[in-house]
């Protein structure tokens, strides 16, 4: 395996990322509206996803040509458009969606964030066998929720090849969010290469796409700026551990083109408004591998909805979200034009569009922020500034942190299949489940082998950290601590049981897992039907993982055990430990995974059984 090493600099990479072709998928400058509906085998329509309404829908999955970068490629599309058609549903309606597969391989559609029977969830191998070539599958379910959601393929790598679209479920009652205009802004990423080839390259060389590694030149600059000793210190831990301080994303602009509503930065997707209007922007992160940091220079955003659930309005300058997440914001633009700027977390590129009073306008595009090294906080968690007042000292054994003082080895949790043990940790003297999630770190026994490259023994648990690259940048950045779902938790019960899983991986081998066990090595996680269970996720890696549990809501809580927000996709930062409550009211088998597509595919995936 090749290994490159380094001394690093926060300088912007010299590679100029792909601005893309202005015309995107529509070649010859044909207006998207000139296409007849159903002209699927012709060039892909991009930038203006058609809106489908009603209760009966026909979606056809096929291949259609695109050209985002000057290289013609085939994308996998629904009804020939990227993004796929926006589905506008109504809370309370029963929708019927006929999905026909014209590909030569299986396909599927998963309705991300929608509560429905497990057979309609669209995950091949868990919900249903998948939709074979030539087959039509009929999805049918009743909408019991409202808000902004999205849908995408759950087969192969089709989600990365163009198969994603937005869903708007209009509320049954009057929408408390009153606006004059409404736009979906779906961010995604495109690669001209086949995603399978991209994965093979990552398997051969984990840092293949990282062109921001520390170099000797960076080292000498650091020496002149901070002295030899500090420069050496800065690199020492990374060198010892053989890990890369700029490992923010697996793929970079080297191979990705960042899209906004299926449009390249050069294509400049534009949303029009009239001055004085209140505009709702439904941001959806439909990327396969990219965290976006979104802001609109000159325009504050009031966040009103997260993952389809209304939140107490909070006004910010910027927010970060990962694949799977959605944020609805309200803006009141006053100037002629604003740039909607979404830079990728590794700072190698951006997606962008414009809000303007008329077509053809542009506002200045900000420069990419410099890439930063991961910090001690990101690697080790909460080492120095521990708030001792908040810790439950009774439960912590400082002399052997990271080792469990309790004899859990004796408790055979897997002993009965009909009635699982349902441990009440409060009764066992953890001293924490009534007050909040357990703070005792319990690594799995399978976290000490070849599938793991690090473990965090002192995680940070605060939710108010905007994350690497967004700290102290002079802007108000949204954090999970700012989200307060309107109406509070959906279930007044506290946790009846608590489970803990660790997010793990080995970057060098490009392996990702829960508890050091890849999906193929794993057993399912069982929730008893009807129980209210607490799930603790502890991130033993240096990357942020957007964790998505299908079928049920994840009710994020604070480290003290107070309700924070209802979400379907929770970003867990490096060395962070978070917890959420689940009311297991959906029978069936469900998928649970990191929504970074390559991580999911390499094994950070579990099956959940609710029975």
């Amino acid at each position: 395996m090749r290994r490159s090493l380094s001394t690093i600099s926060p300088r912007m990479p010299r590679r100029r990322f792909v601005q893309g072709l202005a015309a995107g998928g529509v070649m010859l400058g044909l207006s998207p509206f000139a296409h007849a509906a159903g002209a699927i085998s012709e060039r892909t329509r991009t930038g203006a996803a058609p809106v489908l309404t009603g209760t009966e829908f026909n979606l056809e999955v096929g291949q259609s040509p695109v050209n985002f970068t000057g290289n013609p490629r085939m994308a996998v599309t629904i009804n020939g458009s990227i993004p796929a058609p926006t589905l506008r549903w109504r809370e309370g309606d029963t929708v019927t969606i006929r999905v026909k597969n014209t590909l030569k391989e299986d396909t599927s559609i998963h309705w991300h964030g929608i509560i429905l029977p497990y057979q309609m969830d669209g995950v091949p191998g868990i919900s249903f066998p998948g939709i074979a070539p030539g087959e039509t599958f009929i999805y049918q379910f009743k909408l019991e929720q409202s808000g902004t959601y999205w849908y995408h393929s759950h087969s192969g790598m089709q989600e990365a090849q163009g198969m994603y679209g937005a869903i708007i479920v209009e509320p049954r009652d009057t929408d408390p969010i009153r606006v004059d205009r409404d736009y979906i802004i779906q961010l995604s990423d495109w690669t001209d290469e086949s995603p399978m080839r991209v994965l093979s390259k990552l398997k051969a060389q984990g840092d293949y796409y990282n062109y921001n590694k520390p170099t000797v030149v960076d080292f000498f600059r650091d020496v002149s700026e901070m002295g030899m000793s500090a420069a050496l210190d800065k690199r020492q831990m990374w060198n010892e551990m053989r890990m890369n301080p700029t490992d923010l994303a697996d793929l970079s602009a080297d191979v990705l083109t960042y899209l906004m509503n299926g449009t390249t930065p050069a294509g400049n997707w534009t949303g029009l408004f009239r001055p004085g209007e209140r505009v709702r922007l439904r941001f959806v992160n439909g990327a396969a591998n990219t965290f976006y940091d979104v802001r609109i220079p000159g325009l504050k955003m009031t966040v009103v909805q997260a993952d389809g659930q209304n939140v107490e309005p909070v006004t910010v300058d910027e927010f970060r979200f990962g694949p799977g997440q959605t944020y609805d914001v309200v803006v009141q633009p006053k100037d002629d034009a604003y740039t909607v700027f979404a830079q990728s977390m590794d700072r190698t590129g951006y997606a962008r569009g414009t809000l303007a009073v008329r077509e053809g306008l542009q506002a200045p595009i900000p420069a990419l922020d410099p890439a930063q090294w991961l910090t001690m906080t990101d690697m080790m968690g909460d080492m120095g500034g521990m708030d001792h007042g908040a810790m439950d000292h009774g439960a912590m054994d400082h002399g052997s942190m990271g080792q469990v003082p309790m004899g859990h080895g004796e408790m055979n949790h897997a002993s009965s299949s009909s009635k699982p043990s349902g441990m009440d940790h409060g009764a066992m003297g953890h001293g924490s489940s009534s007050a909040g999630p357990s703070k005792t770190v319990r690594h799995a026994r399978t976290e000490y082998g070849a599938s793991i490259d690090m473990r965090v023994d002192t995680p940070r648990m605060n939710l108010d950290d905007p994350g690497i690259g967004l700290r102290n940048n002079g802007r108000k950045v949204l954090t999970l601590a700012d989200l307060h779902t309107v109406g509070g938790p959906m279930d007044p019960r506290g946790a009846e049981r608590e489970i803990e899983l660790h997010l793990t991986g080995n970057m060098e081998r490009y392996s990702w897992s829960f508890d050091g066990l890849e999906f193929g090595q794993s057993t399912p996680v069982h929730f008893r039907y009807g129980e209210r269970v607490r799930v603790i996720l502890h991130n033993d890696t240096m990357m942020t993982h957007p964790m998505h549990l299908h079928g049920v809501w994840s009710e994020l809580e604070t480290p003290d055990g107070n309700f924070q927000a209802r979400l379907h996709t929770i970003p867990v930062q490096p060395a962070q430990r978070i917890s959420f409550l689940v009311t297991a009211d959906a029978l069936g088998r469900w998928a649970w995974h990191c929504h970074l597509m390559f991580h999911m595919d390499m094994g950070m995936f579990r099956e959940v059984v609710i029975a």
Partner: protein
Amino acid sequence: MKTGLKKIVFGLVVVLVLPFAAQGQTQDSHAGHSSSSQADTTRDPATEMTPMDHGDMKMQGGSPPADARDPNAYSGGFKRNEGQYALDPRYRLKMSDEHLFASLWMDNLEYVRARGQEWGAYEGQAWIGSTFNRLVLKGEGEFKDGKIQESRTEVLWGHAISTFWDTQMGGRFDYGRGEPSRQWLALGVQGLAPYWFELDATAYLGSEGRTALRFSAEYNLLLTQKLYLQPAMEVNFYGKDDPERDIGRGFSDGTVGLRLKYEITRQFVPYIGVEWSSKFGKTADIAEEAGGAKQETRFVAGVGFWF
């Protein structure tokens, strides 16, 4: 010390010291941290907290404590593809962690010139398998006029034993034009050591009681994102004389190379470099008696590629 050996030792020292000079060193990975956290730890006499002993916390490696959590504890007895709500096993979900991957690396394919002679040389590795178990093919050799003059090829089963290390076991085949070939059983380790050294150490057992050892190390020093310097060294040891192959017992030969590589793409890397090769001890004597040289300095230019 004989001149050849001196050069090898010098090379070893350069290869080992350079990254330390550039990057820093400390044996204890926590030494840089314990002072800062001690300073921040507030002593609360009421709880009698002991200061955290960072020596106990290992972020990498180590073995699980006796009461480590069971990762299957939450299954409630359920299995994938079996039981309530499970699909028929023929629809079993197989993610890429259960798929096979493969790669071929030709690290160096080069033109070599030394003492007025020219020839070609290659060094590469290929593998096929899953994340933790692979079939590995390693090879190194020299060729001239389209024919292989000398080669060492190993076919091994690689198994991941820890975060950065694999054990490898299998066979090695040595070929030399005009010489008898040799076959060996091979057992060794390959991996990435702290400070990013790529190491490879293998022991061999041949017929007629022959034994051998091979050790190699390589390092990549990034000058820019695409230009890097690659010092590398290799040394061989044989347990018995093998006069038919001009090998004497003991350390037989060593090579230290320095190649300057430029990645046109990640997968196409031209380079130039220089290599010092030396024979030692009895092997050196044998070479001298045959009228050959004990050491040579080689100019190399070539390309590395992989797919």
